[in-house]
């Protein structure tokens, strides 16, 4: 189902990951350190501009290749996987899809060169319910004055700019939401404290605060009132990348379990030949392969410009649940070795992967998206 170019691309990314990312994957987790030194080499190989057109300095690839990249990076380091998924799908994509030429010129070449962009949607009181956004943009003369806070923002401390949603009407019956691009250098833009997380500890997550940040219409993304729609379209694509991240982590867990089961001998035989262990490996591998197909399918549909919202929700839902199960299984197979920091990263993967069931819409929200789409299609026939 994949083309030759996809296999070649995978090999290229694998080689890059082995050389640049694998050596420090454990260290950045233990030290809870964002590996800023990766940004330049990742930009050179095109990982920072996978969705950006060449005219803005990007190295665009199709969505299947993008999924492969996130998968292969996450297979070795979940923290770097989410850094890339968030930068490309959430930071760059809204500007690529909804920005005007000026805005693209302003941000995309810098992003392609290794500077980061962030997406400011979630707020303390607006998680799954993005309609509950409290950040306000008030019109004063020909300017917008923006006030509010965003939380759990990936890459917040390093991003040069954030695509943030804000209410442009406070009529509770018509909560119009609009997207703005806000620069880190702007007066009133500040980064809050870095979150201390269970996993993905090498990824940067922090809050953002806007205190009378004042911008002209040049910083308004698309048209007024389109913020909610833009956000939904962005998340449809973003979910493929979180699914790909989960897939990579699940594959990483399987890699771990397989290596252990094939090399640990008891009673003269590798323990993988025992049914209780061998069959678990078979189940993990089968489920991971199914998740992979769902992700590639959603990726291909996106590239073919077919409606793919249901498919990306299914891919994300299934891949994250499979990966969480696989990581738990890997720990179980490795027993004590699995629960401690050491040569097998099973425990790190297990902590990392839980976020995939939460970020960019919890599993419950995916089920909501899928079930509504299913029911809608029945009504129409």
């Amino acid at each position, binding site marked *: 189902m994949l083309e030759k170019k996809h296999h070649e691309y995978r090999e290229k990314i694998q080689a890059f990951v082995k050389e640049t990312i694998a050596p420090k994957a454990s260290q950045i987790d*233990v030290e809870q350190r964002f590996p800023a030194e990766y940004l330049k080499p990742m930009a050179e190989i095109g990982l920072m501009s996978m969705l950006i057109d060449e005219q803005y300095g990007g190295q665009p690839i199709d969505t299947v290749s993008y999924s492969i990249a996130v998968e292969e990076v996450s297979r070795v380091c979940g923290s770097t996987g989410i850094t890339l998924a968030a930068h490309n799908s959430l930071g760059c994509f809204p500007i690529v899809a909804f920005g005007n030429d000026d805005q693209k010129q302003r941000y995309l070449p810098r992003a392609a060169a290794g500077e980061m962009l962030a997406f400011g949607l*979630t707020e303390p*009181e607006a*998680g*799954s*319910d993005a*309609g*509950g956004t409290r950040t306000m943009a008030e019109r004063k003369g020909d300017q917008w004055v923006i006030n509010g806070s965003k*939380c*759990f923002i990936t890459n917040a401390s390093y991003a040069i700019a954030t695509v943030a949603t804000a209410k442009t009407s406070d009529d509770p019956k018509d909560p119009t939401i609009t997207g703005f691009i806000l620069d880190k250098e702007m007066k009133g833009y500040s980064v809050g404290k870095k*979150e*201390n*997380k*269970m*996993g993905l500890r090498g990824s940067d997550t922090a809050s953002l605060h806007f205190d009378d940040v004042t911008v002209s219409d040049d910083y308004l993304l698309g048209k007024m009132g389109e913020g909610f729609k833009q956000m939904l379209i962005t998340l449809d694509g973003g979910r493929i990348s979180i699914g790909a991240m989960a897939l990579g982590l699940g594959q990483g867990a399987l890699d771990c379990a397989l290596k252990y089961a094939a090399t640990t001998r*008891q009673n003269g035989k590798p323990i993988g030949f025992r049914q*209780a262990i061998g069959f678990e490996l078979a189940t993990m591998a089968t489920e991971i392969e199914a998740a992979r197909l769902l992700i590639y399918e959603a990726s291909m549909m996106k590239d073919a410009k077919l409606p793919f919202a249901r498919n990306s929700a299914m891919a994300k839902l299934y891949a994250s649940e499979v990966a*969480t199960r696989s990581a*738990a299984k890997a*720990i*179980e197979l490795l*027993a*004590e070795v*699995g*629960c*401690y*920091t050491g040569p097998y990263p099973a*425990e*790190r993967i*297990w*902590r990392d992967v*839980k*976020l995939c*069931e*939460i*970020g960019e819409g*919890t*599993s*419950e929200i995916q*089920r909501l998206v899928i079930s509504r789409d299913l029911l809608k299609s029945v009504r129409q026939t």
Partner: protein
Amino acid sequence: MDFRLSEDDLELKQMAREFAEKRLYPRAEEFDEHETTPRELIDEAGELGYLGFTAPEEYGGMGLSAVAFGGVLEEICGGCAGFGILVSVHNSLCCEIVAKFGSEELKQKYLTRMVTGEWVGSYCITEPDAGTDVASLKATAVDKGDHFLLNGTKSFVTSGGLAGVLIVFAKTDSEAGHHGISCFIVEPGWDGVMLGKPEKKCGMKASDTREISLADVKVPKENLLGEIGAGFKMAVSILNSGRLGVSFQAIGIAQAALDEAVKYSKERHQFGQPIANFQAIRFKIADMATRLDASRLLAYRAAHLKDLGEPCHRECSMAKLFCSQTANYIVNEAVQIHGGYGYMKEYAVERYFRDARLTEIYEGTTEAQRMVIAKDILED
């Protein structure tokens, strides 16, 4: 079939809850971050009797039942599971094996100091290459006439850095398999005993876990615990206590996670109402509570049988298997109900999620429990 706690047991449980709420829960995050438990907490637990709970009264213990201990352990683990593991291993394995097999002299010398918490017990059986397969352990004890000479390495020793007493299993006959294993009481201050660095763990971080190596450690003859060559049989005879301990730990963590999830689901508003109004959340809570109750019944039944002195091998393994799996299911759902907040260390469910994992692994993995249960059923 009445496994309800007696009034006395309930009172003890309530006292343990107060201790957990005042002394453990508020500091559990700090213990997790610093990866240890302060000494003064061990003294406090000792004063309250939690470190000699089931040990005989004649040696200063409380002489209480496995059922009563279950209630107390649930509460302590709800407050801080990493500290609970110290309490559990100390009582269920270390005090129990000394009380059961120690000579009068050993009990006077060691058990009386263990029950107060002055000397915390560490159980040294697992080795880098001997986990579930105990018979393959490599540590040796050689009879040198007036003493034994011990050599070997023990891994994942719970409370290793805090211990006053080490219960060490070693081979006295390398040819005899199971029958060649003996058990010794070793003091960590003796020449040749070396503490490794604390292990970096994913959960139960408040528990000090490390490697302990023994290099030509001279152990007096009288510190042989039980008969020579009886170590394996002794270890097997206290497996039930250990498995019960883990069952109650799992229940304690699960109850705490469920409590947090219920509280959060009522406070968190999305789409204009508390998320507790949504069926997806309500059904999760119903399933979590049902499975937790079933776990409790399995664990208290096993403890009750143990108190009656009846065979309970299968029941203890079933309790351990089911309680630990249930705990992992519940903490996972509790994090899920919390959404993004559940992934952050500011919320206790993040810690419960990591802590619960070990309950499916130590004192016999989930797989080892299944082996025990299946064997017991098939060979019955």
